[in-house]
């Protein structure tokens, strides 16, 4: 079994010459060529909290193991964003249509991945977010 992820970055005009970057990786267990073998599958949540909520709960057992996280903001209003944090450290804001794909170390039990619908108001409607986790064996990772 295999999980592959391909990124393509493309711009015809951000520099004097066109920019095209494409890279495919096969997601493997830490420091090996063995494929990751567990996944949460694709999940969807609708966010309406401006305070942090746990999207993926860390487990210290995962510290030396491999995990890859995919998150996308499925809103269509460009002003709507969600703020992504790990252990209260803000990583960045995913605006409508933005996605991220990162390795996740789970350095300790506080290293939860949290999300806040920071720009949400009663009039904006919920912000839909989809996410998936691919990881190796540990008995962790129950979504909060």
């Amino acid at each position, binding site marked *: 079994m295999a999980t592959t992820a391909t990124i393509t970055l493309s711009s015809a005009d951000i520099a004097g010459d066109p920019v095209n970057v494409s890279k495919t990786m096969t997601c493997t267990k830490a420091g090996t060529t063995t494929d990751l073998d567990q996944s949460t599958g*694709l999940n969807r949540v609708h966010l309406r909290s401006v305070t942090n909520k746990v999207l993926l709960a860390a487990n210290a057992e995962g510290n030396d193991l491999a995990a890859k996280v995919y998150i996308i903001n499925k809103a269509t209003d460009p002003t709507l964003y969600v703020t992504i944090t790990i252990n209260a450290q803000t990583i960045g804001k995913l605006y409508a249509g933005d996605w991220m794909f990162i390795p996740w*170390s789970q*350095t300790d039990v506080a290293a939860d991945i949290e999300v806040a619908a920071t720009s949400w108001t009663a009039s904006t409607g919920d912000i839909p977010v989809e996410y998936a986790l691919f990881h190796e064996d540990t008995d962790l990772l129950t979504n909060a």
Partner: protein
Amino acid sequence: MATTTASIAVSSDVTDTTLSVSNESTLYTAGTETGLDAMTSVTKVLESLNDVDLIGTGSVSTTHAYVYINNPDADSTRYFRIRIGTASGADSTDETEEIGRLYGGDWMWFPWDVDDDITVKPGDANKMTVEYQVFS
């Protein structure tokens, strides 16, 4: 303003039904539909186990950017710890939050709020190459 797109395609047969995800986003300034107009592209060779700045907040003039980091190493055991915060150098003081380990062949893509530096700590003291691009 420039038009820059970031696409992802994920395919996984870990589950009984194959998961296939494909999305493309256009990179805009925060909360707008105005394209980004700045890009930095860097390759660095590191040769120590120190935690050092990879991308400093001073290198970007906005508060919303996108970061691509790639470990081009062919050896899957050689990794970088990618962190966010204040680089601690050789000091063991942990003033950074680790996002994750980028093993040989791995890449990552994420939005960055430019509040804290992005740091890198090689897992191998021998020469290791890291590549990154920042769009802002």
